[in-house]
């Protein structure tokens, strides 16, 4: 990024001289607002968590119900992100390469999970995949809703646009000549796709996976209706935070929230590392 390069040459000065006014005002307001709304409340959470001490923190974390809830959250989010990697990549390919009636509409609708309120998605999925629902009844006696599989279904919906929208712009930029070159060199279509095209898309696919996974771990509204919320089986970590709060067990809620927060910071770091790695290796993402 050029910004950091110029910042370095500026030495110890806070900013480079500019004739444009309003730096102090806009940065001052931004930092104040950011601190009041985000930083101080989040710091408060970490502070309250630190007050628990290591032993208190550890006791809550290693509680069987907490561990199961974290396992359910991370496990289902992982599976859903995996499904999204496969279908999201196929969908991105179909949308960039093929022309068929309704393509525009479908392209626009991929963003529905971003726009649809999670509670609406939640009740719709619960009704649809319930044993008496349109889809759920097809699969009886096998149950989808009110099991961990139901959680995966809801998280597939939530995570889909993250994969499609990260992979799609890169697919649009693929140079057709590369594929033609591969073909003239004797590669069949399968080889061209899996040995020439997909390796270049790996960073985008990984980023999409990480974004969908991170979002899925913290998701609440779309999951709680379809999950059944059986402790130790289909109870997600965010729901356990809410349950602890309703019991006025602030320590319990704080500890679970802190560990989730730390993991999402780690995820953020991983996403940034993937992007830095791919910039070095493949140019811009």
């Amino acid at each position, binding site marked *: 990024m050029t*910004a950091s390069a*110029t*910042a370095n040459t*500026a030495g110890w000065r806070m*900013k480079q001289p*500019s*004739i*444009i*006014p*309003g730096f102090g005002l*806009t*940065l001052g307001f*931004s930092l104040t607002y*950011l601190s009041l*709304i*985000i930083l101080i*409340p*989040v710091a*408060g*959470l970490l502070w309250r968590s630190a007050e628990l001490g290591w032993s208190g923190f550890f006791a809550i974390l290693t509680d069987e119900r907490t561990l199961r809830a974290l396992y359910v959250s991370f496990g289902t989010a992982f599976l859903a992100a995996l499904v999204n990697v496969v*279908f999201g990549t196929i969908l991105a*390919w*179909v949308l960039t390469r*093929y022309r068929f009636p309704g393509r*525009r509409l*479908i392209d*626009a609708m991929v*963003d*529905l*999970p971003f*726009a*649809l*309120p999670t*509670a*609406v998605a939640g*009740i719709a*999925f*619960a*009704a*649809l995949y319930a044993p008496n629902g*349109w889809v759920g009844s097809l699969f009886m006696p096998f149950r989808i809703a009110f099991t961990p599989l139901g959680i995966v279904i809801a998280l597939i919906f939530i995570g889909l*646009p993250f994969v499609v929208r990260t992979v799609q712009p890169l697919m649009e930029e693929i140079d*057709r000549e590369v*594929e*033609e070159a591969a*073909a*003239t060199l004797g590669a069949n279509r399968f080889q061209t796709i899996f040995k020439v095209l997909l390796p270049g898309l790996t960073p985008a696919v990984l980023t999409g996976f990480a974004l969908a996974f991170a979002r899925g771990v913290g*998701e*609440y*509204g779309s999951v709680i209706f379809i999950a059944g919320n059986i402790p130790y089986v289909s109870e997600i970590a*965010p*729901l356990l*935070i809410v349950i602890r709060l309703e019991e006025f067990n*602030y320590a319990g809620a*704080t500890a679970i*929230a802190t560990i*989730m*927060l730390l993991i999402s910071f780690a995820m*953020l770091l991983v996403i*940034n590392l993937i992007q830095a790695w791919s910039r070095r290796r493949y140019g811009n993402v």
Partner: protein
Amino acid sequence: MSDNRRTFRSPADEGFFTKLALVALSLVFLAFFLFMPLVSVFVHAFADGWDAYYEALIEPDAWAAIQLTLTVAVIAVPLNLVFGLCAAWAIAKFEFKGKAFLITLIDLPFSISPVISGLVYVLLFGTGSLLGPWLKSHGVEILFAVPGIVLATIFVTFPFVARELIPLMQDQGTGDEEAALSLGASGWQTFWYVTLPNVKWGLLYGVLLCNARAMGEFGAVSVVSGRIRGLTNTMPLHVEILYNEYNMVAAFAVASLLALLALVTLALKTLLELRFGAGAAGGRH
């Protein structure tokens, strides 16, 4: 067209049946995960006909929820709009240290679970905190009241406008502003007549997404609201209450309004992207 031409296939392309299979696979996937849930919202909402639908919406508690949702959005969206403009101005028009870190901090709410976004305010203003009891003794209610709902909504919608504007204004550089200033325009005139027209579509795009999330937020709001019917119930929370009471028609009727909001948001967003290009309307989610 001769037979010969019709059977010709570019080596950098898949066969007709492969294409057909991939398109069909995508459509089936989307049917189960996108279209059927969306359609089911409206089918359930109108299950008992127009009159039942209409009655579910004009019922006093539902009407109060609609009003509260609108009120919260009317407060939260403009505040985040002003913040977005300030942050983008400071970040895009000036070079200073720690810029990349500041952008990461602005994006932070996207990687925090909505439940945790609500929890941080419960810890800040709840009974065990320093601020809560003091504010209460001075007659200010934050938690389980409208201010708490507004704060939680601002938290989750915090990055939307800023992250659309920052890359857009960075791309546009500072040339236009410098020209205006050197021709004698004041800082305010430069912003109002030069910068704002340059970014208006990106701004609209950010506001659109910000508003959709503000009206649809569930997890964060449910933690701080206390769910007092007619007082601190937003539309998504009202949907949850009705659903848990097995009042399906009413739950889906309110949900259908939110789904409609999502569809309108998507339509406007697509329109902006088509008319002004994905670049003008931000590219990243």
